[in-house]
């Protein structure tokens, strides 16, 4: 039991040598008791554990957001950490490897990517780089990724030119779906590829390819296809032109090829085979043939035209 009188005046003893050890009261102090009861109160506990932290976080966020010095400090910290991480040797890129692609295309890709090596991997935006590479005409698909030992690999699928397109004195290469691959100075650069001419020709490449496949037996005689009015094709041979309809051009061409097989129509004195109405083919004769025809008609029927 604690003494009622803390220290008796009349018997003050100096116990400096060995101060008597007071046994600690095992019961909680009144303050402790009240605080614990407060802590067990539902609303108080919610306040401390949920609402106050939430409020503090919101206030801190707002203050930090609105103070320029803090913003500067934070961005400096961020930059410091970033440069520190960027300086890691594991992230260094020393080489760009392009496994496939013509040397010219490789040169183009390197020009587009434009990295001053060595560079850190976290400074490289792979998605942006891929978009840049895809922006090249000659690239059909691309994937850019980091490989081990500081290599950045740009894997591409090249567009293969399947056609030459001449439009307003400029000569381009088109792939099989009509996408522009490259510009070439002369037709003779790719004389192995068929030629299409005219405005809008690149949008009808599929049809052109079908027509070319029909033309395979007379391949050597074909000069090229001309797109007329962005609507239909003309097939130009050395001395004949075939005017094909807008719809069903390949079928019309097939009928011409049948005529060729039967009558050698392309070797005749015909300047134009007009199939714009496939049900009613029209032949336009050249001048000599026409005059000869007239002469023969006069001879046969005696009439004059």
């Amino acid at each position, binding site marked *: *039991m*604690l003494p009622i009188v803390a220290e008796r005046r009349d018997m003050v003893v100096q116990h400096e040598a060995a101060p008597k050890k007071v046994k600690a*009261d*095992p*019961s*909680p102090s*009144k303050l*402790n*008791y*009240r605080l*614990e*009861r407060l802590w*067990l*109160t*539902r609303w108080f506990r919610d306040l401390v554990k949920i609402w106050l932290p939430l409020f503090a976080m919101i206030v801190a966020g707002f203050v930090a957001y609105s103070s320029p010095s803090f913003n500067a400090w934070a961005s400096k910290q961020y930059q410091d950490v970033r440069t520190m991480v960027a300086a890691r040797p594991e992230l260094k890129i020393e080489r760009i490897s392009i496994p496939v692609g013509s040397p010219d295309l490789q040169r183009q890709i390197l020009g587009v990517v434009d990295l001053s090596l060595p560079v850190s991997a976290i400074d490289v935006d792979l998605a942006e780089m891929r978009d840049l590479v895809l922006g090249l005409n000659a690239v059909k698909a691309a994937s850019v990724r980091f490989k081990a030992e500081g290599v950045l690999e740009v894997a591409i699928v090249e567009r293969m030119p399947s056609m030459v397109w001449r439009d307003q004195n400029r000569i381009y290469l088109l792939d099989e779906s009509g996408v522009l691959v490259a510009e070439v100075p002369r037709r003779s650069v790719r004389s192995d590829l068929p030629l299409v001419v005219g405005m809008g020709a690149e949008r009808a490449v599929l049809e052109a390819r079908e027509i070319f496949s029909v033309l395979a037996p007379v391949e050597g005689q074909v000069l090229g296809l001309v797109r007329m009015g962005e609507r239909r094709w003309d097939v130009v041979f050395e001395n004949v032109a075939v005017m094909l309809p807008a719809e069903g051009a390949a079928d019309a061409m097939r009928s011409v090829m049948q005529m060729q097989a039967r009558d050698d129509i392309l070797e005749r004195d015909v300047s134009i085979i007009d199939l714009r109405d496939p049900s009613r083919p029209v032949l336009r004769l050249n001048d000599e043939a026409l005059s000869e025809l007239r002469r023969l008609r006069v001879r046969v029927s005696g009439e004059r035209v």
Partner: protein
Amino acid sequence: MNELFETQRDMRHRRETAIRRGVMAVLDVGSHKISCLVLQFSPEEPEAGAPDVTVPKMGSFRVVGVGTVQSRGVKFGEVVDMAETERAIRSAVQKAQKMANLRVDHAIVSFAGGRPRSYGLEGAVEVEQGEVTERDIGRVLAGCDVPPYGQDREAVHALPVNFSLDHRTGLTDPRGQVGVKLSVDMHMLTLAGAPVYDLIECVQRCDLEVAGLSFSGFASGVSTLMENEQQLGAAIVDIGGGSTAISVFMRKHMIYGDAVRLGGDHITNDICQGLHLSYDDAERIKTVHGGLVATGSDNRVEIEVPNPMAQWENDRQTVSRSELIGVMRPRVEEILEEVRERLDASGFEHLPSQRIVLTGGTSQIPGIEDLAGRILGGQVRIGRPLRVQGLPQVSAGAAFSSAVGLALHASHPMDECWDFEMPVDRIGTRRIKQAVRWFKQNW
């Protein structure tokens, strides 16, 4: 009589509040230990078709926290040092709250001190309208002749034990029955006022509101006696640390309560003096080796007791178990003889059944059943409290019967006199007082 029960009515209101909130503490303040149970009342499952409100059920509670600490500042069940007692209550409550992880604001308190006195009260009144109504019951209870039990005493229990209507007696609930003259037998238990106020003050200093006050003998009886024992008549003897509470039950009501100011601490004191030991060592030897019936083999059982004066290793001190029994037995006999006297005074021998149930911490001494049977006569058994949901095993022993009884009493309160409305002509300004109190409490 109106003024008299005003505190009790306040407590009743607080108890209802506590049950509505669902959390209540039970505080058993003894001389040896203070135990606190935190009860959680679970809301009743809404029945199909019932209005969509959840009201806590009175009966279904669960003990969610238990705190038991050594008592300090309590002697003979009464507070002798307010500050110490307050600290002890504080630590018990804190422990229980910590375990429950709940804050409690209301406490029901039981204690065994205060020199209880029992009174049998009678009252009779003419029934107003042929059929007995609740109003008649209130009137007959209010009309009981209260003996002059002294200004400094406080009525703690006032239980209507028996109602009689004309010539029929033994009615538990006369409402609705037809008759002319309604009379009641009431049992009132009073305690000395000062210990009650001191204890209430101690509890209030711990920021708890006292929602009820019980005599611990009554609470022990509620938890320990079987239903048939309560019905046919039985005495419960709660032998605690500093005092022994006695109560007699009959027809499920307490009809007598008393206390003997002797208990287990006196046995420990005797061992202290008889065997020259420190109090703590004596307590330990009492609980570990204690007994009451010596046999031949007990002469040979040597109990080693700590010897603070020992100079070297072999300087050991031992006592034989029969010596220990020889010290303990006279004191237990004295306690039981005191109990016998009180029971004789209560007219216990006239009851149809004379079962005596011993409980409390001291009832765990081996052999006390035998000794009590010899001194008190009749059938004696050791009582343990009912199993309550959530109560840990360590707190389910005989020492906790009054705490458990309080919990049961809180969930199934017995009708007390102040549970009935007083007739209007006697209330006077009570309504206004109630309104004022409500304002005070809420603002």
